[in-house]
C-alpha cells in the first residue's frame, strides 16, 4: 500500500472515530466557548484599563488647567494671595506634591487581551509626586480581592491549563486501545508500517484539537480585537500560533511516550493526568514558593515606617536635618515659609531613607524572579504562561522595565520641583509647560521583545519534545521487536 494512501485511510478512520464520540463534541464546544469568553473578557479588561488611563489623564489636564488659571489670576491681581503655601500654584514643592502631580502608565499592547499577567496587581495609572516613592508606588486600585486571588479566565490560562487536558482526553489510549482490542499484535505481524500508523493517528487526534483551538483563537481575536491593524499585533499573533503548536507538539510526544510503556488505557490516563497535575498545577506553586523561601521579600511595612521615622527625625532635630540634607543651599531655602521648609526637609529625609531600603527590596525581588524563571524550565506550562503574558505585554519583563522607568522618572520629577523649592524659585506659567512628562515609549520593549522573552522557553520545550518523541519511538521499536520474536 502506498504511504500516502495509508495515511489517508488512518486519518479518515480516526476522524470518524472522533466524530462519533459525544463527549468529545461536548469538550470541543466547551473549548470554543471558553476561548470566546476569554477573548471577550480580555477585550473588556483592556477597554477598562484604557478608560481608567484616559480618566486619569483628563483629571491631570483639568488640575493643571485650574492651577494655571489660578496662577494667572494671582499674577494679574484678580485673585488674592493664597492664605496657605499648599494652595499657592507658584509653590514648586506643593504643586509637585499634589495639584500638579503627573501620571505614569503602561500603555496596553495590541495583544493585551491574551493574558492578564501581573497587570491587575498594579493600578492602571500611577500618580507621581515629589513625595518618597512608597507614597505612590504602594497605592492599589480598587478590586475584589477574591477575583485577584483566583485570576481571570484568559487565553494564557486556556492554553497552558486546558489545552493539554483536551489533547490527553483524545489520545491517552493511542496505542493501548489497539492492544486492548487485540489489533496491535495483528498490526505488528502484518506488513503495515506501524510507526506510520501511530504517527498519523497521533497527528490526526492532536492535530484536530490544536486546529480547533487555533482557529477559534484566531477567529475570536480577529473578529473581536484590532490586532491585525498593527505590525506588533500581527507578529505577536504569529508567535502565539508557534507557541501553541510547540506546546501541542510537546503534549502529543508526552502522550506517545506514556503509551510506549505498554500499559493499560486507564494507567495511561492516570499517568498523563499526574504529569499534567505536576507540570500545570503543582510545579508552578512549588517554584514560586521555593523562590520566596530562598529570597523572602523584604517587608513593605519597613519602608513605610522608615519614611515616617525620617519625618519625625526632621521635626525633632531640625538643625541637623538642614545641615545634612540641604547643606549650603539652605540659606536660599530659608526664605521659604515655615511649612514649606518643613515639608521640603521631610521629603528629602524620607527619600534618602526609603531609597536605600528600596534598593534592597528591588534586588531581593529580582533574585526571586530570576530563580522562579529558572525553575520554570522544569514546567512547560509555566514557560508557556511566561511566553504568552510577555506577548500580551503584561508579563514580568515589561512591568519591571516600566517600574524601573517610573523610579527614574520620579527622580527627574522630584529634582525639577525640589531644586526649585531649595532655590526658593516660584513657578511661572512657562514652568508649567516645562513640567517633566513620563514617556511610556521609553520603557516600551521593542517589537519582538515579547517574543525574545519566551524564545528560550519555547526552544527548550521543542528540545524536550524531540527527546520524548525519540525515547517513545525507541521503546515502541523495542516492544515491537519483542512481540515479533518467535517464542
Amino acid at each position: 500500500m502506498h504511504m500516502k494512501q495509508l495515511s489517508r485511510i488512518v486519518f479518515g478512520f480516526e476522524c470518524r472515530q472522533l466524530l462519533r464520540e459525544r463527549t468529545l463534541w461536548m469538550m470541543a464546544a466547551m473549548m470554543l466557548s471558553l476561548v470566546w469568553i476569554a477573548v471577550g473578557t480580555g477585550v473588556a479588561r483592556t477597554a477598562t484599563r484604557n478608560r481608567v488611563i484616559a480618566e486619569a489623564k483628563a483629571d491631570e489636564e483639568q488640575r493643571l488647567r485650574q492651577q494655571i488659571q489660578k496662577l494667572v489670576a494671582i499674577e494679574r491681581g484678580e485673585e488674592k494671595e493664597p492664605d496657605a503655601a499648599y494652595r499657592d500654584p507658584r509653590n514648586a514643592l506643593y504643586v509637585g506634591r499634589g495639584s500638579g502631580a503627573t501620571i505614569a502608565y503602561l500603555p496596553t499592547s495590541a495583544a493585551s487581551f491574551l493574558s492578564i499577567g501581573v497587570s491587575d496587581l498594579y493600578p492602571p495609572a500611577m500618580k507621581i509626586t515629589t513625595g518618597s516613592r512608597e507614597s505612590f508606588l504602594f497605592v492599589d486600585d480598587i478590586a475584589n480581592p477574591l477575583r485577584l486571588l483566583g485570576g481571570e479566565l484568559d487565553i494564557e490560562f486556556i492554553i497552558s491549563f486546558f489545552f493539554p487536558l483536551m489533547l490527553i482526553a483524545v489520545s491517552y489510549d493511542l496505542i493501548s486501545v489497539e492492544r486492548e482490542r487485540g489489533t496491535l499484535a495483528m498490526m505488528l505481524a502484518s506488513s503495515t508500517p506501524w510507526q506510520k500508523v501511530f504517527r498519523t493517528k497521533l497527528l490526526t487526534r492532536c492535530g484536530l484539537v490544536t486546529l480547533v483551538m487555533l482557529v477559534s483563537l484566531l477567529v475570536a481575536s480577529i473578529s473581536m480585537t484590532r490586532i491585525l491593524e498593527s505590525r506588533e499585533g500581527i507578529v505577536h499573533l504569529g508567535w502565539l500560533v508557534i507557541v501553541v503548536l510547540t506546546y501541542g507538539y510537546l503534549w502529543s510526544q508526552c502522550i506517545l511516550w506514556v503509551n510506549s510503556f505498554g500499559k493499560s488505557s486507564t494507567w495511561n490516563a492516570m499517568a498523563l493526568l499526574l504529569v499534567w497535575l505536576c507540570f500545570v498545577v503543582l510545579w508552578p506553586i512549588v517554584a514560586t514558593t521555593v523562590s520566596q523561601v530562598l529570597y523572602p521579600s523584604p517587608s513593605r511595612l519597613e519602608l513605610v515606617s522608615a519614611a515616617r521615622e525620617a519625618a519625625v527625625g526632621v521635626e525633632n532635630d531640625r538643625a541637623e536635618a538642614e545641615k545634612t540634607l540641604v547643606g549650603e543651599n539652605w540659606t536660599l531655602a530659608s526664605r521659604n515659609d515655615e511649612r514649606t521648609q518643613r515639608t521640603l526637609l521631610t521629603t528629602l529625609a524620607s527619600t534618602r531613607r526609603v531609597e536605600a531600603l528600596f534598593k534592597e527590596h528591588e534586588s531581593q525581588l529580582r533574585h526571586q524572579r530570576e530563580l522562579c524563571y529558572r525553575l520554570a524550565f522544569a514546567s512547560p506550562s509555566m514557560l508557556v504562561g511566561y511566553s504568552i503574558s510577555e506577548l500580551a505585554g503584561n508579563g514580568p519583563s515589561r512591568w519591571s522595565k516600566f517600574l524601573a522607568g517610573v523610579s527614574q522618572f520620579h527622580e527627574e520629577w522630584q529634582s525639577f520641583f525640589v531644586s526649585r523649592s531649595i532655590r526658593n524659585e516660584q513657578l511661572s506659567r512657562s514652568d508649567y509647560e516645562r513640567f517633566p512628562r513620563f514617556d511610556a515609549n521609553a520603557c516600551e520593549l521593542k517589537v519582538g521583545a515579547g517574543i525574545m522573552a519566551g524564545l528560550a522557553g519555547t526552544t527548550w520545550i521543542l528540545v524536550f519534545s524531540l527527546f520524548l518523541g525519540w525515547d517513545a519511538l525507541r521503546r515502541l521499536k523495542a516492544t515491537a521487536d519483542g512481540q515479533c520474536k518467535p517464542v
Partner: protein
Amino acid sequence: MRGSYTIIAFKELREIVRDSRWMILVTLFVLFLGSAVVLGWDRYQRVKEERLKATAADRKSWVAQGEKNPHSAAHFGQYAFKPIGILEVVEPGVSEYVGSSILLEAHKQNEEQGRSARDRPMPQRLGQWSVAFLFQSLLPLLAILLSWDAITREREQGTLNYLIGLGVNLRSLLVGKMIAGFVLTLAFLAFGFATFTVVMAMTQSDAIRWDPRSMTSLVARGSFLLATYVLYLVGFFAFGLGVSVACRSSRTSLMILLGFWCANCFIAPRIASDVIAHVDPLPSSQAFREAIQQDKKKLFGHDEKHPAFIAFRERILKEYHVDRIEDLPVSFRGLSLREDDASGYKIFDKHFGELQTRIETQDRWRAYAGVAFPMLVVQSLSMAFSGTDSRHHHDFARAAEQHRRIIQDAASQHLIDHARNGDNSYVAPRHTWEKIPAFAYDPPSVTWTLRSCWREWIVLACWLSLCLGFAHVMTSRWRAKD
C-alpha cells in the same frame, strides 16, 4: 444487612493499605500537608514579626512628634496594621491581595495599601501552597481516585453480580465503599489539623492567648472549618460513587469525574468572578475618589470663604452669644475642624459602606454558584472561619476608621480646649500624643462569622443533598434495571 457496611468498608480499607500505589499517594499527601503547615507557619511568624515591628515603630514615631500643632499631628496620623490570625497558617485567603495597613490621617479615609502579592515572582492564581489549597483542590482528587471505579470495577471484573447474588444490596456496597474512602480522607483532614496543633505547641506559640474565651473561639473556628471540609468531601464521595454506578465503564467515569474536578477547582472560580465583575463592576479608584470629592464639595474643609463655613461661624457666634470669633471662650478653629470632620464621616461611611457591600455581594453571588461547583462556597466558608475573607478585612478597615475618628476628635478637642483664637502658632505639649491611644484591633467573634455566612451553609447543604440524592437515584435506577 447492617453489618455488611462495615465488612465492605474494612475490606476496602485493607485493599488500600495493601496497594503500594495508594501507599505512595498517601505518603506524598502527608508530605505535602506537612510542608504546607511548616511553610504556613514560617510565613505566619515572619508576617507577625513584621507587623509587630511596624506597629511599635509607628507608635514610637507618633509619640516622638514633640511639640506640635494638634491638627498637624492629625495630618501625620497613625498607621493601623492588621494583626495576622493564627488560622492564616491553614488558610491565607485573600490576605495577600488586600493591603495590610491603613494610614489614618486627617480629612481622609484611606484604603488598605501594599498588596504583598506584588512581591511574588509570578502571581499564584492556581493556588498558594497551603493546607486549604490541599484540602480544597487535592483532597477531592483523592476522593475521586477512591470512588471512580468503585462500582464499575466490580462490574468489569464480573464480581458485582456475584456480590448481589450473595445478598449484598447495592446500597450497602455503596455505603461501605463510601465509609472506607471517607475514613481515609478524614484521616488526612485530622492529620492536617493535628500537624498544625503540634507545630503550634512545639514552638510554644505566643500567638494563642490561652484564656478560655480565645481558646473557645479558636476551637470553634477550627471545628467549623473541619465541618466545612467534611461536608465538601462527603459530597464528592457521593458524587463519585453515583457517577461510578451510572457509567458503564471505568474510563467514562474517570473522564467525567476528572472533568468535574478541573471545572470545580480551576475553571469555575474564574468564570464566576468574571461574570459577576461584568454584571456588577466595581468603580476605579479614580472614579471612587472623584465621587467622594463631589460630596465633599458641600463641606468647607479649610476654605473660610465657603458658604457652609460662613453659616457655621454664624451659628457658633449665636450659640455663644458673641459677635466676634476672638470673643469665643473656646478655639473656633478646633470647633470648625470637628464640625468638618463629623460631616466628612457621613460621606466616608456612605461611599466606603457601598463599596464594601458591593464586594461582599459579589463574593456572596460567587458562593451561590457553589451549588454546582462546591469549591466556590467551600473557599468562602474556609476563608470566613480563618478570618481571611473580605468581610473580615472590611471589619478591620471599619475598626481602623473608628480609630482615625478618635484621633481626629482628640486633636480637635485639644485645640478647642487649649488654643486661643487668633493665635495660629499654638503647639500642644509633647505628652499629648501619649494620651491618644494606639490602634488595637479585636477580631470579630465566631458568632459574628456564623451570622454573616449562614447563606453559604445553606448552599453547601444543597450541594451535599444534591450529591446524596444523585447517588441514591442512580442506585435505585440501577437496581430496577438489573
